[in-house]
């Protein structure tokens, strides 16, 4: 049995680099961050690196023009990291630091939620490994070929997978240690669904109220929640059992799929990472590349002539 991410080529690592930075590019490009300049400063509670800045500096950070300027510069860095412009590691590290500031700027007006965090960790991990560069121990062999096995790529993807699984394990472990069994036997699940179905939400789904209209669904939802917690706790075992990983993807994937219509909660960034982190991307991506090149060759003038 081979381990998850044991066969990662330089080409695959390049694809993962492109994927992660592309998701960031979309996330930032679609964010009208200038809105934050309109919100009252009394609501600003600086988090992370922003909390180290003097209060006067924070007023400067939240000026409309500066937010848009910073966004434009950061988009350029992300685009450069995405396509692997050299010096990649310098650009990618600066982009990751910029993203940390950006995420802090948004969270300072809300709360420290978890939406983009795994994607942020992915940016750092792909910035320190030679997803397109080389440094020290991570040196890419000078005579490498894109389809050669990349130990650095395996290490980076393994670290990324462990980080993602650690976030699920931490969530499950906390719930297990602090809230079990009450959280599964009380009315908590239906209360969350009802509140999120009726309250304000970006997506406007109201399926959460179905639990209260068809009460026989309540035990089903509670059992589903307990099962989800079990799989969250055991998440790191995905690395040593392929079958557990398949089951995990079904259970956690269903949880993410159900939490959108039921609770108006979308973990888009995590779900977008699943194909490159939780599947053997090192196996399927080269196959996709081969198939696409074969089709491209077939429809090319030279291929048609043959």
């Amino acid at each position, binding site marked *: 049995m081979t381990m998850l991410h044991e066969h990662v080529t330089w080409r695959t690592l390049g694809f993962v680099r492109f994927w992660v930075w592309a998701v960031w590019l979309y996330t930032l490009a679609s964010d009208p961050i200038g809105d934050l300049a*309109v919100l009252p400063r009394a609501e600003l509670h600086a988090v992370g690196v922003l909390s180290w800045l003097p209060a006067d500096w924070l007023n400067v950070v939240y000026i409309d023009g500066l937010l848009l300027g910073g966004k434009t510069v950061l988009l350029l860095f992300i685009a450069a990291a995405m396509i692997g412009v050299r010096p990649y590691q310098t650009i990618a590290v600066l982009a990751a630091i910029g993203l940390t500031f950006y995420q802090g700027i948004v969270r300072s007006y809300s709360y420290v939620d978890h939406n983009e965090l795994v994607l942020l960790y992915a940016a750092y991990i792909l910035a320190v490994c030679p997803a397109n560069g080389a440094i020290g121990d991570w040196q890419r062999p000078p005579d490498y070929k894109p389809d050669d096995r990349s130990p650095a790529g395996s290490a980076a993807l393994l670290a990324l997978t462990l980080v993602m699984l650690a976030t699920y394990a931490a969530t499950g472990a906390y719930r297990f240690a602090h809230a079990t069994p009450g959280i599964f036997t009380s009315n908590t699940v239906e209360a969350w669904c009802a509140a999120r179905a009726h309250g304000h939400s970006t997506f406007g789904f109201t399926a959460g109220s179905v639990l209260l209209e068809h009460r026989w669904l309540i035990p089903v939802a509670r059992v589903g929640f307990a099962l989800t917690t079990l799989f969250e706790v055991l998440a790191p075992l995905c690395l040593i059992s392929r079958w557990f990983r398949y089951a995990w993807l079904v259970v956690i994937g269903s949880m993410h799929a159900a939490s959108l219509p039921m609770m108006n909660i979308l973990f888009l960034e995590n779900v977008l990472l699943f194909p490159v982190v939780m599947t053997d991307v090192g196996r399927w991506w080269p196959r996709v590349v081969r198939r696409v090149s074969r089709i491209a060759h077939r429809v090319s003038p030279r291929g048609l002539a043959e």
Partner: protein
Amino acid sequence: MYVALAAAALAFAAPYAMGTPRPVLVQAAVFVSLAACLAVHRRFRTFVSSFRPTQRALIVAAPLAVVVGHMTYAGFPLPDWHMFSAGSGDDPVYFDLNATTRSGATIRLHPGRAASSLDRLRADARLRQRLKDLPADGSAAQLPAWRRAADLIQALAKLHNQRHADDPVVYVDVDRCTVPLDDYQGERSIRRQRVGRVEVVIENIPARP
């Protein structure tokens, strides 16, 4: 595998052997058990030991930072992961912002759509924080906490108006809504109480796309 299971069982039993287990010890036991399962898995160990020292350091340090951040620092960018672990058992409460526009139409003002940078539940969470302790008996307007909530709603309405300059919002009624879990009969069974009204100052501001 048997060694892994034994290590996991030992780590797990330890907090309970000391009497009533403290949640933090149970959590630590879970993490130790999981780490033991990975560490004693021969194939996984061989795989990890095939990497160079700096690569191994990353593989260990990255998830460790997440776990340590979760259990100690609990702030951005290494927060706690406490989601969906607390419930009050009471009927759930949410706050509705019913906005009236200049043409007299009534719309629902969505904080996360007005300030799209704080979409999903971010803007709503901050607003809820401001409103949750305010009384819904008409006396909220006298309280300093209401002033802060009103300033935030005013800003959200301003953002909404920048995108809907043709029919801007002129005032917003804030309702506390309680969903009766045991006696839910659809939308009409939700109890609504008025917290207050926010008059919106309409300025000449540049429209946003």
